[in-house]
């Protein structure tokens, strides 16, 4: 096993934080398996409650932040996380766009509380689910629901080696074509968010004959209107087109705006 470079005086400290989320992205970190051992040689996993209850105090060189901000408490806590972190990477759909829980943004949250909870008076919740970047400076956005293992390794590797991170800026279509997946929109005629969604997952869903669900969030300059028009041409009712854009990244501005055009 190769050892870490002797040039570094001490191992940088890594922290992994959780806000409102399903823990799926943190599990992606745990799932690194074969990379975890060499990773532990390069970086000190100082604060990662999902993995260990032993916590080493900050400040931290690198923080991975999962989850969105949905409570007043978390709005305060995210400031503390930022203060203790030299670099902060928001990981996943929740941390970067508010997650699927941002569907609450479209509803009356007080009414939801009364419907779901016997004693809503014990709850302190915000009316919107907001991304980490709405509260503090985010150094890097690693999107995905959950994040992709390969991309996670790239982010950690780039940090350890102090080089720029390489994450694709192109659409899922490029990934489908590279792996030889037949376009689901052209061949069976399935509406798909691939053309407006950032690559990263390796185009999993089209490989299983499903349209892309947009897990990795919109590409820059996403022509969502053209994708929506095509979905309607393929027979999808407007209400379903709105739903297509209102999934894991419902509050991503490009998706939210497009969905609003298709509300019945």
């Amino acid at each position, binding site marked *: 096993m*190769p*050892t*870490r*470079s002797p040039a570094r005086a001490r191992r940088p400290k890594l922290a992994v934080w959780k806000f409102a989320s399903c823990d799926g992205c943190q599990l992606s970190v745990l799932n690194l398996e074969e*990379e975890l051992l*060499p*990773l532990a*040689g*390069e970086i000190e996993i100082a604060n990662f409650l999902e993995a260990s209850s032993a916590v080493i105090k900050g400040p931290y060189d690198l923080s991975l932040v999962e989850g969105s901000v949905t409570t007043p408490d978390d709005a305060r806590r995210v400031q503390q996380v930022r203060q203790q972190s030299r670099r902060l990477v928001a990981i996943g759909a929740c941390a970067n766009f508010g997650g699927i829980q941002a569907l609450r943004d479209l509803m009356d949250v007080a009414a939801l509380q009364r419907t779901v909870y016997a004693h809503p008076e014990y709850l302190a919740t915000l009316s919107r689910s907001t991304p980490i970047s709405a509260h503090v400076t985010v150094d890097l956005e690693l999107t995905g629901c959950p994040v992709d293992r390969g991309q996670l*390794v*790239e982010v*950690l*590797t780039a940090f*350890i*080696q102090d*080089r720029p991170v*390489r994450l*694709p*800026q*192109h*659409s899922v*279509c*490029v990934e489908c*074509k*590279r*792996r*030889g997946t*037949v*376009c689901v*929109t*052209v*061949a*069976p*005629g399935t509406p*798909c968010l*691939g*053309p*407006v969604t950032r690559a990263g997952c390796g185009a999993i869903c089209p490989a299983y*004959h499903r349209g892309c669900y947009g897990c990795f969030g919109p*590409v*820059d*300059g996403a*022509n969502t209107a*053209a*994708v929506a*028009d*095509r979905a309607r041409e393929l027979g999808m009712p407007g209400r379903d087109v709105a739903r297509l854009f209102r999934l894991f990244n419902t509050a991503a501005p490009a998706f939210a705006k497009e969905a609003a055009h298709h509300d019945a």
Partner: protein
Amino acid sequence: MSADRLEVLAADDFDVLVRALAEGGREVLGPVLRDGVIAIGPVESAADLPQGWTDEQERGTYRVQPRADAAWFGYAVGPQSWKSVLFPARALLWSGAKGGVGEHGVEVSAPDRSAAARPRALLGVRSCDLAAIGIQDRVLLGRPAVDADYAARRADVIVVAVTCGFPAGTCFCASMGTGPAPRTGYDLALTELLDGEHRFLVAAGSPRGAALLAALPTRVAEDADRVAGEQLVASSVARMGRWLDVGPVPAALRGALEHPRWDDVAARCLSCGSCTLVCPTCFCTAVEETTDLVGASAARTRVWDSCFTPGFSYIHGGAVRQTTRSRYRQWLTHKMSTWVDQFGTPGCVGCGRCITWCPVGIDLTEEVGALVGAHVDEPQRQDR
């Protein structure tokens, strides 16, 4: 197809040809029905071909359909071109490891190209794709910097072409002068005849093809066979779904750089890059560099890229082409105009894939028509 030395192979003897191609462990690749499309896959016998199937193609739409007859090659081109075999999406360029004896203590290794260089036979190559292979040969082998992976893949390839009898709605090879009958670039050329006895006209286009043909149980073609072949080509031309009068296009596009149509198409285009990736001539790639976690090893990989991606024109400070308008214009003017200046032919062979496989059905023949039919005669600007 050359008129001389035309032979006839009975469909019942087709597998003799497939076995001859496979001799010595050669990989035989041809059309196969997979995932609802006619794709490229291993062919061990005629039974692997999409017998009795055809395709219906229109802008943004592709469907396979059963045919009324049992034709084996009764369809046009599928989503993948032979680029997927000869110039695949990923190719390792080199890898390196620390602790070696090389410069900076890094040992650099050239990739093992033995799998890439495996002898192959490409069965059922359409004339548009023959022309596309010719273009890629020129681009990747015919210039001072030869693409080593392409050269390895191209080194031992037998090309068995087939006349396109049933072009799709998106085909326009006849107007591009690239089809529908194979003219050059093949070892063997087949024409499937369905009238009467199911049979194939076979012509050799190279010494290697002639040697293959000599070993097949064929008979000399009679006039009736030749006429049937000519009729198929004529009816194929008549069925061609699209037509592009390409002659004036290269010059006319140069004068249309500020045409309002670029804004119009940009409003519809997704900038997804699908058109370039399915195109059999598009050759643009990016270089991906990876390291392991501890920095002990690194690799450099060539991957398909596209002039539609934001990263493609990225230089210090940002992307040169930021808008879809500028990207679509770059693509179309390169295909149809500046490619001629660069390589002597258009970069388009009329296969229609970019029309069929565009998720929103943008049709380059229609765009060219709109741009050139009424082009704005403005002085050229260095607009990016």
